[in-house]
């Protein structure tokens, strides 16, 4: 399939998934609120605990936006199709088997952005914590990498559905690690030296906290390039691992039929 044909197919698949999620708009709103709770709670806790700390509000509001734009539900959109057998139908069609999964991921993020971002921007404007345009521009590349990273981090445990009935648990564990080490429970800037530096080298911060720190101005200048390199490195590694897990999973599916 040519690149043009694939792009058109992906766009059509995204449109199909978007229509589906639009029909679930009231459910979407509850999901968005649920996803925003953790970073907003972090904002309340840390701005109360450290009222003099600079940039906590802008960081957590940026983190809320990143959380909404990187959200991934592959344990629902992929694992469940493996469990109910509909995944097999995708193997009989001339398409990348993950086409609908990627399309659903992009469609969900689109609606999260449309419904959630205006509220985050309004909050930031009310709090006087709107990011500078230059910081936003610098964060754009990091955000794209974080979107891909979070997909890999969620999709890989979701693929455990090929082996176990506990894929949702595996994804929950990943979400917990994202919460603890990704900059939600505590901004890494507030962690003591070595702990903060180590956490910045892990994929969880790259997938969540990194773009938020760049957008809020915590990371600037040459440090942005370093962050981008770390993110790109993790993306290469995780994409490779995802490919490996995928191939082994498909082999197992072909051997036992899911």
């Amino acid at each position, binding site marked *: 399939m040519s690149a043009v044909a694939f792009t058109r197919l992906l766009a059509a698949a995204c449109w199909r998934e978007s229509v589906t999620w639009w029909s679930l708009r009231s459910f979407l709103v509850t999901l968005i609120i649920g996803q925003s709770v953790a970073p907003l709670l972090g904002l309340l806790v840390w701005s109360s605990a450290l009222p003099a700390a600079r940039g906590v509000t802008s960081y957590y509001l940026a983190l809320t936006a990143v959380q909404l734009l990187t959200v991934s539900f592959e344990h629902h959109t992929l694992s469940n199709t493996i469990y109910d057998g509909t995944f097999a139908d995708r*193997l*009989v069609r*001339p398409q990348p088997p993950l086409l609908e999964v990627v399309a659903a991921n992009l469609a969900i993020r689109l609606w999260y952005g449309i419904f959630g971002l205006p509220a985050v921007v309004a909050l930031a404007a009310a709090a006087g914590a709107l990011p500078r345009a230059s910081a936003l521009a610098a964060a754009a590349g990091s955000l794209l990498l974080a979107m891909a990273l979070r997909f890999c981090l969620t999709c890989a445990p979701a693929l455990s559905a090929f082996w176990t009935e506990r894929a949702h648990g595996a994804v929950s564990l990943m979400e917990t690690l994202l919460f603890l080490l990704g900059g939600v429970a505590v901004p890494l800037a507030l962690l003591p030296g070595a702990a903060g530096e180590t956490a910045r080298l892990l994929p969880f911060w790259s997938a969540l906290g990194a773009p938020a720190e760049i957008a809020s101005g915590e990371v600037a200048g040459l440090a942005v390039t370093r962050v981008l390199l770390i993110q790109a490195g993790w993306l290469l590694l995780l994409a490779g691992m995802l490919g490996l897990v995928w191939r082994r999973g498909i082999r197992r599916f*072909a051997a*036992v039929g899911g």
Partner: protein
Amino acid sequence: MDSVPANPAVIADGLGMTFRAPVRPPGLRAALASVVYRRYRTIEAVRELTFELCPGEIAGFLGPNGAGKSTTMKLLTGILHPTVGRAEVLGRVPWRRERALLRRIALVRGGRPLGGPEELTVLDTFRFQRLLYEIPEPEFRRNLGELTDLLGLAELNGRQVRALSLGERMRAGLAVALLHRPRVLFLDEPTIGLDVAAAATVRAFLAAYAVQTSATVLLTSHHMPDVEALCRRVLLIDRGRLRYDGELARLSAALTPDQLVRVTPVGRDGQDWSRFGEVQQDGGAGAGSSVVLRVPRREVPRVVGELLARVPVAGLAVEEPPLDAVLARFHQRATP
């Protein structure tokens, strides 16, 4: 001039598929023990399955539940990789899932005739299928027009998938699956759950489609009218093994040692019919009522001779037992 036989569209050569399923006795102790020591049992879903389908051939694939029909379908469509054996569909190995093959086959499952988002209209689904199979727009329009006419889809195309009844879904699902004109069609219970009228529509369409396109069709169904309407050849599978491969018309003879002798006597004078054979049906004492006797196949000539000699007969016919009944008996014997 002799015609050169075409290459088979489907080849299964010694196909076998073995699964390992975990087993454990009931109870908490067994559940705890299974954490450290798992036991498995081996299930041979398909064993040494060998057959070929010629281009344009329609074959019925019969067997009781759990016989291995769906597993074979999955092997031939590339969803499963066999444990042993070889398969080819249109000259390609199905489990390599080559795009060139996937664009020329279709699998229709009666239980899930129309996948994809339910919020979309049927026409949206057709349009996505066009992109998926890279069907040129003029061909798409032509095929869609034909399928719309054949399946009566004109009023369905603008409706959302979620608003369709099961019969409408099946019709739309068939059209979606056939939009790219597959050369080989795998139909897994295409009329399951449909009412009599809807099932008849689907059968008539499939018969017309097969004639029109010369597609090769492998059909599984527990619904004998489907098989009788569409298939001259049937393959009967039981516990993973092929038990019969031949003409549908000879299936009864192959499976049952008996034939039915239908006698219409001139008068009812208290005949003891059981001396001629097992009485299957006795129409009673009314004029023109008949008696159906089950008679061992090899004794039919003798019994017919005796009946004609001893009973004043207004009519007599020798029939094969109904296929449904024959298969039901076979399935009962086959059930472990």
